[in-house]
């Protein structure tokens, strides 16, 4: 943090204005945090010269809003990959295996900028012996079977992948909503295609697979799909155990750290990161049972000020230590996004400005 501030005057101004300067912080909780939305700017907030920038990662953004833009160098990219690999290896094992991506293949012109979806896909490549993309753009005449991004299941490719690896350990990944659409019953055409494929192949498609997914539940909550239903549908589609469907929490602003659900349904910080849930009233750390704003800390972001970030997500502290899954440290659960705007009183001019 202090090293970065020397290379980033705006960040130095931010640190210098704090009541507790990071040089004097006695605990991690005393370190100043940036809100994740601070990265929603045209010029990425980073500690790098232009020549050092290897990639600029972008979050998804609603129309009219700037996405978060995270500039990383090669060293940071390597650290991030190592971080994700170490965390996920704790859940699915460290061996490399065939990788099924529930998304379309990278397309020409994607360039150096990477969105959250492609960055998350990339993050699992370390586990991959070979990669198969389960979706493709709809061909003319297939539009009615496509998802809102115009993608359909690539049945032939999946069939071939299942034929070759149906008996092997497999890892699969997709954005939560995309997985729901194509594997969880969200799209009738995809469900029918998978049923046909199961019939053709004589049963379960990938019984020894782990399916990881991330990206949030907002769209699924809107259509009242809960986690149990999601897990049951997706695991049934693959013919795998429901416990092998693993939701993880992460963000492009701290891509090297992800928070998968443990066997108890809780999330844990790895050794190179920390999570603090903060009471919205005074930003003090929450205790067991309290809901608070999720703050994430990471040692894996030397190229930008992502060391301590206040998210716009809420969580609840489940255990301060000793989760029954055996992992050490605080265990928490995701408890939803912070609403866009609270209903305010007579000085609520936010909506008018937005209109």
């Amino acid at each position: 943090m202090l090293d970065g501030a020397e290379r980033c005057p705006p960040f130095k101004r931010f640190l210098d204005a704090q009541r507790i300067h990071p040089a004097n912080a006695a605990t991690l909780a005393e370190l100043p945090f940036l809100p994740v939305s601070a990265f929603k700017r045209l010029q990425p907030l980073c500690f790098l010269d232009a020549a050092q920038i290897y990639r600029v990662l972008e979050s998804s953004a609603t129309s009219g809003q700037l996405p978060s833009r995270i500039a990383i160098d090669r060293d940071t990219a390597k650290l991030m990959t190592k971080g994700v690999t170490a965390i996920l290896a704790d859940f699915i094992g460290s061996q490399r295996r065939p990788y099924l991506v529930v998304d379309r293949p990278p397309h020409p012109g994607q360039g150096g900028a990477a969105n959250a979806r492609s960055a998350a896909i990339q993050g699992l490549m370390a586990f991959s012996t070979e990669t198969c993309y389960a979706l493709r753009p709809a061909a003319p005449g297939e539009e009615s079977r496509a998802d809102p991004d115009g993608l359909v299941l690539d049945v032939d490719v999946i069939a071939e992948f299942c034929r070759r690896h149906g008996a092997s350990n497999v890892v699969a990944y997709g954005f939560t909503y995309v997985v729901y659409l194509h594997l969880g019953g969200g799209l009738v055409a995809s469900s029918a295609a998978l049923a046909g494929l199961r019939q053709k192949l004589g049963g379960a498609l990938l019984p020894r697979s782990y399916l990881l997914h991330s990206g949030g539940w907002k769209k699924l909550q809107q259509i009242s799909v809960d986690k149990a239903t999601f897990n049951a549908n997706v695991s049934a589609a693959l013919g795998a155990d429901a416990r092998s469907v693993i939701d993880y929490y992460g963000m492009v602003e701290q891509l090297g750290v992800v928070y998968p659900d443990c066997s108890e349904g809780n999330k844990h910080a790895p050794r190179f990161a920390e999570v603090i849930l903060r009471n919205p009233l005074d930003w003090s750390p929450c205790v067991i049972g309290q809901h608070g704003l999720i703050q994430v800390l990471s040692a894996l972001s030397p190229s930008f000020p992502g060391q301590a970030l206040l998210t716009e997500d809420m969580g609840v502290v489940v255990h301060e230590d000793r989760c029954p899954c055996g992992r050490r440290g605080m265990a928490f659960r995701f408890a939803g996004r912070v609403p866009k705007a609270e209903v305010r009183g007579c000085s609520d001019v936010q909506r008018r400005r937005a209109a």
Partner: protein
Amino acid sequence: MNGWPRSLLRPGDSAELQGALDTFLGRPLVVGGATLDGIVHGLDAWGQALGAELGQDVGLPFLKTWWRAPQLRGVLRHEFGEGSGLGPLDFREVIDERPWAPVGTVLHWPAANVPIQPFLSATSGLLAGNRNIVRVPSALTGFVEAALAAAPAAADPVLERLLFVAFAHDRNDLACACAARSDAAMIWGGHEAVASVRSLPFPHWARLHVFGPRISAAMVLLDEQTLAKPAELQRLCRRVARETWQFDQQACSSPLALYLQVTAGAEVAGGGREAAEWAFVAALTQAFEEEDRAHPRHELDVRTSVDIALARTSWLLDDQGGKAVFPVGPAWSILYGGEVDRVPEPVHGKTLYVVSSDNLELAASRLDSSTQTVGVWVHDAALEAKVARQALARGVDRVVRLGLMHVFSTPWDGHELVRPLCRKVHFISTRPTERSADARG
């Protein structure tokens, strides 16, 4: 209507509400010589009875003052004029040719951020002689119920003209039922609330009076006189702090930005403009710390909590030279030192932008009708008048000295409070009046 008029109605369905409205609106109201006194003294007595059971809301002392009989009569005198009858309730044996009459039934739709607003709004309707349906936001039901429970017997003439109704904001059926039975409405709140209430099926003759959404600002001329006297500087900063603290900066009259112009004399006395501004910010910091110790926040919605963090960060990260003073938590923030006259998006939650200004008159000329109140501290009377003229001409409705920004009085938002809820009617007798008959005799 179990418990009415001393309980809050929580209708389960439209039929229950319609029945309650039939009963409430069907009861005859007799207006006589004692009616105005009954209502004014009823409010006065009710105000005196409001105590600790209503909690520590900062508006409560104001409501108690607002409901004092001399204050209420002052409002009526201000709006109706001395010696010409104080509105529909000022009963005269001989009817005037152009008397005032109530509009009938007024629907009050207060905002949820000011607990006393249901009562302030209803007072206007009461003084105009109307029946009043007050839709109570869910956040305020406890406050309203406690206030109703405290009402003394003397408040009966008031209570028989009031029906407090609580229902969720998405119960459009209940909102429609209230609107359909109303002849006027006073609507307070944010953009969404105002748009939603305006769209209700009021009768075509209904008059809708809208208050909000607006924001407010402060303007300070930092002169030698203020800067050189620590007591004077503290007095100024205490006033700014109190204006910022009330209603957690979420009322339309809350200052979200403070324009600061340093006079040439103060620049010299203070060791330069930046140093003078810093002296002001240092004094303001002390005042904010003291106000926070005296009135700490007890709750903060999570979105505002995040917005405060983001406002501080954006102010400091943007390359505009922004500086800031704030405690470890989100209790308050003073954001200063940015570009001259640059005001970012308002944040609320006791986040005050101190904006350097070369010329307050020019800054006032850039305001528009989104600004409701400007609180001023300008010892130069000529400049104060220029600032006021500019602001009022541009759409600002109130220019008041710092310390009075939240003092609710008539007019408010450019409206009078009682007369718009009355009708000016016409009576021409078939017989000559006694006076004209006497004159002929």
